[in-house]
């Protein structure tokens, strides 16, 4: 037997034999057991590495042992089995380490570790099984070996869990057995082959095959927890944490999912299965499970139960990917096998840590746990975000491939399922993250002892898996990533090569990379408590590379091979302008906040989100490919949450909630849209996007998805609530810069200048202009200057949106229009930022020094004036540019002055408010001179920057025509007059202007919250009744055992019941008579 024939067997044995050995040694031989455990692990891993290398070189590894006549026990290594086997081998190591730490000095450890090893051995066997019967053998072995682990604690709950587990798995095993035997009888030895074996066999009755498929899927579905066979999984949570981790991430559910893949691809063959009409049904079940599991998870307060239902949902992604039946979806399903494993094991490790260290079992007890156990919670956060599908964590990659794969075969409904599931994931994960990080910890928790928050054996595994979850996401395109393996498998399965189309140039421009990496590195440095102070001071330094790049105009593109996200960065003329805007604002904001928030109680957190936001905003400007863009976009959106709720007041929390809800909704819409943009998965960079043939639904989704960020009317509700509650510099950034991300998105993805989209363009113009005016009306009613500014932002962004809409209507104008919009964006960004910062400056109006007072007043008025667009200001240039470029749409130009009137009203009102609130000297203004200096610099930038831009050069001259001066002057004057007339009414709190009674968003959100609360409560109770009390499938078992137990008391040993029922003599005679009669009369 050569090594090639032996190796698969050795791998299985390397997992099983240590288990057997562990049984033999006593409970007290801790050291020896550890050596056996870890040694077996490492040996197993080493062998797996050998195997992978060999398979990569095209060698064939197969162990074939005779089992039955015509039936062998086959262990075979192919790409698919390697995927699973390396996952189990690796996670086994981590789980072992974790379990050693977790179990400590409890009882029965020998038993635990023994069965643990056997369990992994069975999993490895499942992975390496080369035919269906071998698979079945290891599958059943897995059932047997996990049972002792589930009931390990030996209390009533775990015994009950064990019973339910057995009930389900035994039933599943029996059905699977029936299916396998039947199939074997029809089709012979059932060796797995890449394109299926059944299609090539003649003369099979399709009806039989369908029934067999149902049997097999039911059998496998039990372990894969397909609804309605999932009932065992949540109850199995009674097991210890490492077991749950293993059950959910590696062994059991994966075994089921893996089996589904095997059966669909390697036994039936995907095309054959599709021809039989089987895959759509499977896909439907998988989809139902995804949604159902997520919905149930929302209502669980028990953390592990929530995770369990999450598993129910997530594992079905694999089945879904398998069933969608396209190569790309296949890749998605398979890679999710690994990705889900890594992320879910992290979550369970963390849940175990919480329970072990602090005794926290419920979500409602998790307040502030992030402060007590930062490392664990960080790992949890990463994994949870990955589960939601937030890029660049691994979960996004699988979802991306699933979605593109679904589109490839026109299964649009899958997109809805994915989006719905992600939404639900967010609903049940994000609140955990929020309370864990932002609430105050329970004072009853013990103070930290020791170096780490928990024993290192409990900390290291989740930390590693969390990092891995990010790494496999980011580096998904490298050759050794799970994704590449999945592609290899799909290539074999479909008999075609499927590789990434984008050819990448391996050149890296350090400066551009530094732009993105510097803030990221700074934020990472915050993790170390010692560096915090230093980093906090050095925040402005993080902007430096960006400034250098923007000012010097480094037009290089930088491509990094092997990265799934972030592979290409680059700069062009337009993005340079945006980068200039961004870097300026960040620089000033960083200086400003250093002064403004010098007395803040949580500066490190602020800095962290500040830097992350910065990374995101730079990255999305520089990113030249879709996934990188969306990743940075998400990073920015999510980290802005931290800024929004930074003050921690009730208002800010409510606003933050609204904000994050809209962010998630936007993300989902954008996910769907971007999947549509990439369509066949081949488009990677912006250059590759085929905009001309963009489906109309994609464009709509893009408009709405980015519209949320850009504050488009109808989806703007979060904006006026979130912007005002953030700290002043953060509001400035939000309003000045981050809303522009929506604009950039439109720019990048919509077919601007390439296709005519009349309805979308018209809609955009309509919404934009309506927003422009309505925002003015509502803004005028605000008492809070920052809220007023937020409405002003909506109003101004409405103009930009309308501009984009115009570009869609008339593609020919786009070249000119684009630079006009750019100018407008820069102008608005700077001015709005200055206005927001001005709110912080305003208390200085009450300063003692009259010179300073005057200076402050002047500095406050300048940006307002620019905003209004008085002649010679940046606003004037921007408006002129817009007017000039929109000459083909005369009605549009007519509208612009009217908007200027509104802006004037708003600005006057703003200044008025500032003046009124800050007239009296404030005793302790937040801002000192350094902040004022930063503000001053910004104000000057507002004045100067637009003039300096190359794009604006053609328009500067036009601004100085007398006609245009007049054009920009009269609306301002008109506005001023109107304001002076209406000013008193505004302050009289008349019914119309009573903002508190007329806050649309507040009312809306109130009803929304009431609605959701009501729905949760009602649905939750019903579901509990239906599914938890009467455990769907296990109920017959319980009834049976109950009836057995009830009669047990009456049972007596000596006289068998049969005798009491029937006289044995009669029975004897009866049998004799039957025999004779049947023999005599039948033959």
């Amino acid at each position, binding site marked *: 037997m050569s090594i090639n024939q032996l190796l698969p067997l050795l791998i299985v044995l390397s997992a099983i034999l240590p288990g057997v050995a562990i049984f033999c040694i006593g409970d007290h031989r801790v050291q020896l057991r550890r050596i056996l455990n870890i040694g077996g692990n490492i040996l197993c891993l080493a062998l797996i590495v050998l195997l992978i290398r060999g398979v990569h070189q095209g060698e064939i590894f197969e162990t074939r042992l005779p089992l039955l006549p015509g039936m062998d026990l086959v262990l075979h290594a192919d790409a698919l089995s390697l995927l699973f086997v390396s996952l189990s081998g690796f996670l086994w190591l981590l789980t072992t380490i974790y379990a050693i730490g977790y179990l400590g000095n409890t009882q029965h450890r020998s038993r635990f570790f023994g069965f643990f090893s056997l369990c992994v051995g069975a999993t490895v066997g499942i992975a390496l099984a080369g035919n269906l019967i071998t698979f079945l053998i290891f599958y059943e072995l897995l059932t047997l070996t996990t049972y002792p682990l589930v009931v390990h604690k030996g209390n009533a709950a775990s015994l009950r869990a064990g019973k339910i587990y057995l009930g389900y798995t035994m039933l599943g095993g029996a059905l699977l057995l029936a299916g396998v035997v039947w199939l074997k009888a029809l089709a012979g030895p059932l060796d797995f082959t890449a394109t299926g074996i059944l299609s090539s066999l003649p003369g099979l009755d399709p009806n039989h095959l369908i029934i067999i498929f149902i049997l097999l899927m039911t059998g496998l579905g039990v372990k894969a927890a397909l609804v309605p066979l999932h009932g065992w999984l949540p109850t199995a949570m009674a097991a210890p944490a490492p077991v749950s981790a293993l059950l959910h991430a590696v062994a059991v559910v994966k075994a089921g999912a893996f089996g589904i893949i095997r059966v669909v691809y390697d036994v039936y063959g995907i095309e054959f299965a599709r021809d039989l009409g089987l895959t759509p049904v499977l896909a439907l079940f998988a989809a139902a499970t995804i949604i159902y599991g997520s919905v149930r998870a929302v209502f669980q307060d028990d953390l592990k139960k929530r995770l369990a239902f999450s598993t129910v949902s997530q594992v079905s992604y694999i089945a879904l990917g398998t069933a969608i039946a396209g190569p790309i979806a296949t890749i998605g399903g398979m890679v999710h096998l690994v990705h889900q494993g890594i992320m879910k094991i992290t979550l369970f490790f963390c849940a175990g840590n919480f329970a072990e260290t602090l005794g926290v079992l419920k979500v409602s007890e998790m307040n502030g746990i992030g402060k007590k156990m930062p490392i664990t919670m960080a790992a949890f956060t990463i994994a949870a975000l990955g589960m939601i599908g937030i890029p660049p964590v691994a979960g996004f990659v699988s979802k991306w491939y699933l979605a593109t794969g679904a589109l490839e075969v026109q299964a649009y409904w899958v997109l809805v399922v994915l989006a719905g599931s992600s939404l639900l994931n967010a609903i049940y994960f994000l609140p955990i993250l929020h309370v864990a990080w932002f609430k105050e910890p329970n004072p009853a928790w013990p103070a930290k002892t020791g170096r780490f928050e928990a024993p290192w054996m409990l900390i290291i595994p989740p930390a590693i898996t969390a990092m891995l979850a990010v790494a496999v996401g980011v580096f998904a395109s490298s050759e050794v990533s799970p994704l590449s393996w999945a592609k290899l498998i799909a290539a074999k399965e479909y008999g075609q090569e499927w590789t990434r189309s984008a050819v990448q140039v391996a050149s890296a421009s350090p400066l551009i990379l530094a732009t993105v990496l510097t803030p990221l590195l700074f934020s990472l440095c915050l993790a170390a408590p010692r560096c915090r102070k230093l980093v906090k001071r050095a925040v402005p330094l993080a902007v430096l590379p960006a400034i250098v790049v923007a000012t010097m105009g480094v037009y290089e593109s930088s491509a990094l091979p092997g990265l799934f996200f972030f592979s290409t960065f680059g700069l062009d003329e337009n993005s340079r302008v945006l980068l200039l805007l961004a870097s300026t604002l960040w620089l000033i904001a960083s200086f400003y906040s250093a002064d403004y928030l010098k007395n803040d109680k949580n500066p490190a957190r602020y800095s962290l989100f500040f830097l992350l936001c910065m990374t995101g905003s730079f990255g999305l400007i520089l990113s030249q490919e879709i996934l990188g863009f969306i990743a940075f976009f998400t990073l920015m959106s999510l980290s802005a949450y931290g800024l929004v709720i930074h003050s921690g007041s009730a208002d800010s929390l409510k606003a933050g909630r609204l904000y994050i809800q809209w962010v998630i909704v936007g993300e989902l819409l954008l996910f769907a849209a971007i999947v549509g943009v990439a369509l066949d998965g081949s488009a990677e960079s912006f250059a590759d996007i085929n905009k001309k043939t963009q489906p109309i639904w994609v464009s709509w989704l893009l408009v709405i998805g980015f519209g949320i960020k850009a504050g488009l009317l109808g989806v703007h509700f979060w904006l006026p609530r979130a912007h005002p509650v953030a700290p002043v510099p953060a509001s400035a950034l939000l309003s000045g810069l981050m809303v522009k991300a929506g604009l950039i998105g439109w720019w990048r993805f919509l077919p601007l200048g390439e296709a005519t989209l009349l309805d979308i363009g018209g809609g955009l113009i309509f919404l934009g202009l309506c927003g422009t005016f309505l925002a003015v009306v509502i803004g005028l009613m605000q008492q809070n200057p920052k809220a007023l500014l937020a409405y002003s932002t909506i109003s101004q962004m409405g103009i930009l949106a309308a501009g984009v809409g115009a570009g869609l209507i008339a593609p020919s104008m786009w070249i000119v229009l684009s630079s006009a919009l750019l100018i407008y964006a820069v102008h608005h960004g700077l001015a709005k930022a200055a206005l927001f910062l001005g709110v912080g400056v305003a208390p200085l109006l009450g300063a003692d020094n009259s010179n300073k007072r005057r200076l402050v007043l002047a500095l406050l008025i300048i940006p307002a004036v620019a905003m209004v667009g008085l002649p010679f200001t940046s606003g004037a240039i921007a408006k002129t540019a817009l007017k000039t470029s929109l000459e083909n749409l005369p009605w549009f130009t007519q509208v612009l002055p009217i908007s200027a009137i509104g802006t004037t009203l708003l600005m006057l009102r703003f200044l008025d408010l500032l003046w009124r609130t800050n007239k009296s000297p404030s005793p302790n203004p937040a801002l000192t001179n350094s902040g004022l200096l930063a503000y001053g610099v910004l104000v000057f930038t507002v004045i100067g920057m637009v003039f300096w831009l190359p794009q604006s050069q053609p328009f500067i001259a036009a601004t100085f025509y007398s006609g245009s001066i007049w054009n920009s002057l009269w609306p301002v004057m008109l506005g001023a007059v109107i304001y002076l007339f209406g000013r008193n009414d505004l302050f009289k709190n008349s019914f119309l202007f009573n903002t508190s009674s007329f806050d649309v968003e507040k009312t809306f959100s109130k009803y929304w919250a009431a609605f959701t609360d009501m729905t949760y409560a009602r649905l939750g109770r019903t579901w509990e009744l239906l599914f938890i009390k009467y455990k769907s499938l296990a109920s017959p078992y319980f009834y049976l055992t109950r009836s057995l137990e009830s009669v047990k008391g009456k049972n007596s040993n000596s006289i068998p019941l049969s005798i009491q029922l029937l006289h044995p*003599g009669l029975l*004897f005679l009866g049998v004799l008579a039957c025999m004779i009669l049947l023999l005599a009369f039948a033959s």
Partner: protein
Amino acid sequence: MSQDLIYCTTGIGLFALGLYGVLFVAHILRKLIAINISGIGVFLVLLATAKHEGVVDPVPHAMVLTGIVVAVAGTALCLWLTVNIHCRQITQQGESK
């Protein structure tokens, strides 16, 4: 009705009678006697089989002899068990008294 048939019918009749006794008579000794009657019925059938025109088949005779020994052995064992149980029950009753 030939001689052979008379023997056979008698044998089967005894067998059936014994069967009834074994199955439906409660007392253990009667059961044992019934079993022996059944056995005699079987032996009668065998002996009837042995008789042929001209020759006597020795094989059924041998079978009957063997069968008798086995029947004796079985009966003895059953009797022993019966007595054993009886004694034990009596001692138990005596103890309980």
